[in-house]
């Protein structure tokens, strides 16, 4: 032992495996930011400097709040994992472009301090921080949170969803599918352009940051149910308009797929998507609000521990015997 002492003290001892992927949580969050970039650019294009200001205020506050929480706990700052920046940007995407700048500041502070940090920080929260913060903002400042403006000229108006659902405003014509696909419609800041969101979502699928189960089940369920539950009976709905309007694309691709608050198994993720889709349609068609994406995701967030418990993978060797 003695003759090797000089070399021995330099050796690291740790548990296997001794090789790891280069993937880190930071890289995954960075990929989510890249995935959100097209929609952020679309928001800037459609709603101008107002959109950029809201996104900056939201992201800035979220990152600052995360930093302060780390400091208060005398820990190294955790802003480097980029999860706070993701939360901030997602919150901004869920706000009407007309909100005053203090709304995203309060919203981000609530998201990080109340919804995330109080439950243990990264990995500990059971609700999607951005969506929970949005729900609180909607309850506290309903007027600001439901004042919609048109892209480009920023004139006040109703959203297409308000026209589409039964309890909505009558007489306003629905925009063309093309306008809805490109995002030339009123709506929350980052939700209007299905094109930009799909581009970002495909990037995340390609990078294997998310898998297809939740988005496909979510959008598919909404498509089928809104077609079935049409205004004039079974099969008279306008599923395409439902899929392209409101926060569905944003919710299905970027919010319901949030790691921390959604199931971990592929089957569980299918259930997540199905449940979100079902609840969204129920709220849109039968509920008090025109939009149900955020609440459906929040409800499924709460159900996630149960889904994880029930939707476990099949254990190797547990062959079904007849």
């Amino acid at each position, binding site marked *: 032992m003695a003759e090797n002492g000089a070399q021995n003290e330099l050796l690291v001892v*740790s548990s296997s*495996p*001794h090789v790891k992927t280069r993937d880190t949580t930071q890289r995954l969050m960075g990929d989510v930011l890249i995935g959100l970039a097209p929609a952020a650019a679309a928001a800037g294009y459609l709603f101008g400097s107002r959109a950029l200001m809201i996104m900056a205020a939201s992201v800035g506050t979220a990152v600052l709040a995360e930093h302060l929480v780390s400091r208060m706990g005398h820990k190294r700052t955790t802003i480097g994992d980029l*999860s706070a920046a993701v939360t901030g940007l997602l919150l901004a995407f869920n706000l009407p472009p007309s909100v005053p700048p203090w709304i995203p500041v309060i919203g981000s502070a609530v998201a990080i301090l109340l919804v995330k940090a109080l439950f243990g920080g990264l*990995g500990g929260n059971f609700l999607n921080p951005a969506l929970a913060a949005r729900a609180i903002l909607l309850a506290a400042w309903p007027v600001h949170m439901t004042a919609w403006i048109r892209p480009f000229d920023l004139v006040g108006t109703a959203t297409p969803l308000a026209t589409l659902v039964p309890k909505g405003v009558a007489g306003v014509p629905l925009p063309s599918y093309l306008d809805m696909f490109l995002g030339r419609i009123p709506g929350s800041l980052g939700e209007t352009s299905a094109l930009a969101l799909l581009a970002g979502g495909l990037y995340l699928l390609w990078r294997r940051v998310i898998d297809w189960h939740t988005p496909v089940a979510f959008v598919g369920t909404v498509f089928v149910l809104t077609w079935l539950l049409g205004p004039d009976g079974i099969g008279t709905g306008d599923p395409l308009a439902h899929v392209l309007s409101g926060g569905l694309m944003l919710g299905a691709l970027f919010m319901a797929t949030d790691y921390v608050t959604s199931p*971990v198994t592929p089957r569980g993720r299918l259930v997540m998507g199905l449940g979100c889709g079902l609840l969204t349609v129920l709220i849109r068609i039968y509920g008090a609000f025109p939009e149900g994406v955020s609440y459906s995701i929040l409800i499924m967030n709460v159900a996630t521990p149960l889904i994880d418990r029930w939707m476990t993978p099949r254990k190797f060797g*547990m062959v079904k015997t007849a």
Partner: protein
Amino acid sequence: MSVKTFTRGGVHPPEHKEPTAGSPIREIPPAPEMVVPLSQHTGAPCEATVAVGDRVMAGQKIGDSEAFISAPVHSPVSGTVKAIEMRRVFTGAMVRCVVIAPDEHQEQAAQTERRDWRALAPDEIRSIVRQAGIVGLGGAAFPASVKIAPPKDKPIDSVIINGCECEPFLTCDQALMLLRPDDLIEATRLLIKVVGARRGYIGIELNKPDAIELLASKLKEDPEICVVRCEVKYPEGAEKQLIKAVLDREVPPGKLPSEVGALVHNVGTALAILDAVAQGTTLTRRVVTVTGAVARPGNLEVRVGTPVSHLIEQCGGFAGQPGKVILGGPMTGWAIEDLGVPVQKGTSGVVVLTREYMDAHPTLACVRCGKCVEVCPMGLMPNMIGIYAERGRYDDAEKWNAMDCFECGACAYVCPSKRPLVDCVRKSKQAINEKHRRQREAKS
């Protein structure tokens, strides 16, 4: 020709086999001091059958046990027993070892004549394998004599030779397949006979095309044995996964391969069995891949009991600053702190990683990305085991099937938060075993 694999989970770590792939096996001389642990296998440890000061021959038995699950150990050299004492082995544990100073003569213990294994009864073969001290050379070191004596009510129809070598860096099985293809086929026939099987398969991953081609050409029209091409995917060479790949059968949790009529032996083990039966050798040498940050990487024929430092010297020393020295492969091997620990029967490689190669990302909280669930070949949820083990809630870890994990490391390999999931499983297993032991004691 179709390519086979297991269906659930798996990862693709970088292979790093180039430095030693296809390089011939070179024998190295014994070290000035040989340290032979009396427990190198799964099962009961041996008692020394020699005393300090005794002169021993190479191949002579120096430790044995009466227990069914055990394997005797033999002297790798001729020389003098200097000490029988506790020494550190690769796991970090202290194990009783026979320390031998080799002499110049290197005399072999008396060997039997060449034997024709076809003339021997299965029980005679099992007895020879037991006496030769053969254990699984793939890493687990389970006594081979036990494996080839399956329960009477569990007939074996298929013998699978494991040539997957799915661990990165390691190439010792590949080297053996290239050097001794005819012997490997012979060994497979021997195993088929011993357990009364009908078919033999040699499973090899596609990243060893030379070995596949060589063995397939020799088995072209063979009615009994065939080569199975396996996808390059970790852990293809894990026993249960290989059975799934080759036979499409799943060994139930907690059961042995005999449950589904299969026997799996690693390439090196099969050859050791043939050598013992046909030539009367005992297991005192094995092929070890020494690679990574060493000057001259290679596949070495090493006497069991040789200190790791001697292997490094024989490969020209370290190349650069070593960060970690691993016995076995990087996915399941053990990082050692003391280069004086000896090579054992189950030591398949010495892999030296530089500090630069080792990544030092901090451990973060689980973000529930589900990647560990996706890659787990056993269909477990390592995230849950990790979270509960971290909080000391081992009962919950047991509910999430910690005991069914065979510690392949795919989950920890893929975890973006760099969580020590295998470590969590090991701690859970220890606590769970301890709990069950206490419960049994309370009952009796």
